[in-house]
């Protein structure tokens, strides 16, 4: 390090060096790799007063199916050690409601919007994809095949390789928008699922969704969630998510958006080193809405401190030769 500093060349380079933060997810360019996780950022507009959305890599909205969804009864979330369990039940306005209520705001953003979509049948997924393709101006579609909180839909597609590849192929046919498949963590090994999504035509993977979990109030003897079980998220799942990203990255060539408990730039860098091209902040938004921007600032500092010129140099850079 010291000897390098004595060399005048790197110093000059240092002063003028621009760090490239932009990454590519399928056909979608992100000005930086930091985005947010579906369901933890509403439809963007709710946070517009607290942070400048145009500084993000992309905005990701809450899961949308064809028609409006009422969602589960309450309580819908419960706090646990270093985490949260939720069973929202994918409440949402449906495609039309979304377009009417939220799209006018989102389409004016300078950064792409990723729309998280779901359905209860392969046909519904494809139809929702087609509707957003028609809409124009959407950044990418994220196929939620891994929501643990809905009986008919979501998770079963993410834990069955054949269904998964059917859903992805059907959406692939319905749209030319970049497709991101949001993977379920609840599998013996993620590799075959990752490959199924890639082969089905997915442009990227989002790893990972929440873990099936449960909590009981011992005084009332009732589950703490009206839905009985829910999905575990937050810092508590980070070590599991890192492992899944690492394994998925070894299995496929398409980029991965890493998520699960990211609270700061060190967490984000850990995901990138494990193999993620981009990262998403989820549960942390709920307690610190500035998290994504803090992650971005910390990431920039880290690259500069390490003398790196391109954020992509971090991707998959973990050194795993056994000693």
């Amino acid at each position, binding site marked *: 390090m010291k000897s390098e500093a004595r060399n005048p060349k790197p110093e000059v380079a240092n002063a003028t060096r621009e760090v490239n933060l932009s990454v590519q997810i399928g056909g979608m360019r992100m000005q930086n790799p930091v985005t947010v996780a579906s369901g933890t950022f509403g439809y963007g507009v*709710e946070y517009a007063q607290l942070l400048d959305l145009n500084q993000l890599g992309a905005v990701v909205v809450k899961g949308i199916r064809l028609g409006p969804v009422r969602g589960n009864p309450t309580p819908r979330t419960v706090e646990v050690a270093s985490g949260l369990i*939720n069973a929202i039940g994918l409440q949402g306005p449906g495609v039309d409601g979304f377009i009417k209520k939220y799209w006018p705001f989102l389409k004016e953003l300078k950064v792409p919007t990723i729309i998280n979509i779901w359905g209860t049948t392969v046909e519904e997924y494809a139809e929702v994809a087609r509707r957003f393709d028609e809409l124009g101006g959407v950044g990418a579609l994220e196929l939620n095949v891994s929501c643990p909180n809905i009986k008919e839909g979501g998770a079963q597609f993410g834990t069955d390789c054949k269904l998964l590849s059917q859903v992805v192929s059907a959406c692939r046919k319905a749209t030319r928008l970049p497709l991101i498949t949001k993977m379920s963590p609840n599998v013996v090994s993620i590799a075959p699922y990752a490959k199924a999504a890639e082969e089905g035509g997915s442009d990227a993977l989002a790893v990972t969704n929440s873990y099936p979990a449960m909590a009981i109030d011992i005084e009332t003897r009732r589950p703490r969630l009206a839905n009985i079980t829910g999905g575990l998220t937050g810092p508590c799942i980070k070590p599991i998510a890192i492992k899944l990203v690492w394994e998925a990255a070894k299995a496929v060539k398409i980029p991965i958006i890493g998520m699960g408990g990211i609270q700061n730039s060190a967490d984000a860098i850990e995901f990138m080193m494990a193999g993620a091209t981009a990262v998403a902040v989820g549960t942390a938004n709920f307690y610190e809405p500035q998290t994504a921007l803090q992650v971005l600032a910390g990431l920039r500092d880290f690259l500069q401190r390490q003398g790196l010129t391109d954020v992509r140099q971090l991707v998959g850079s973990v050194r795993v030769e056994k000693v």
Partner: protein
Amino acid sequence: MLPPTMVEESVRIISNERATDLYFRLVVQSPRIAPLVQPGQFAHLRILPLREALLRRPFSIFRVEGYTFSILYKAVGKGTELLSRMRPDDELNAIGPLGHGFTVPPAGGEMPLLVAGGYGMAAMYLLAQRSPQRGIVFVGGRRRVDILCEDEFRALGWDVRATTEDGSHGEKGLVTQPLIAELKRGTAGRKLFACGPTPMLKAVSRIAEEFNVPAELSMDEHMCCGVGVCLTCVIPISTGDGWEYQRTCTEGPVFDSRLIAWEATA
């Protein structure tokens, strides 16, 4: 762009003292949030020493004085207990003011009847202070220590009727008893405003219907984000042909009692 209606800021504790029993009053320096507060709104506080418990805790804003606001809280669990041990000059992080508060009765409008149970009294003070019309506050609690800011309401010139379940202070019974008695004396030009535990709100809602008086209720649902993104805090709201879930942190916490689809609540 419109001026901000909510902001995030690091707030410094000015004082944090026990009021009665398990209740504490916290005053913080908050130059950006304090001036924006409307009655019935809340602040979402990050209690920084809470580490493995991640979420913010919501508290109604009790009083606003200059660039400070205060809350009145009960130490009921890990967050509030840690909070009660924090000291002047310690920092908290706050997002606020949040939510859709009470409609302040216009000058010459309805005469306000406030109904408050437990820490619900906190949410009512600002309404009483900013209402051009004085009215009656019905405050109720289990025991004497649950009656919180009676004198403060009196100092504003309000008529205060206290009840306790054990009779240790004021009338013995539920807060709805003197309310019913008062409404029997007359309902014209009167409007109810209530904040407290859900069973109390439900009772007030029924009374409002029975006496055909308007009522605004501040609903107490568990919250997570506090700003409308997570959909944790929903309650069923009538839509004419049915009901839909709306967010107490955003569309509420204050709702017109006639809109609440009580039949769909647990």
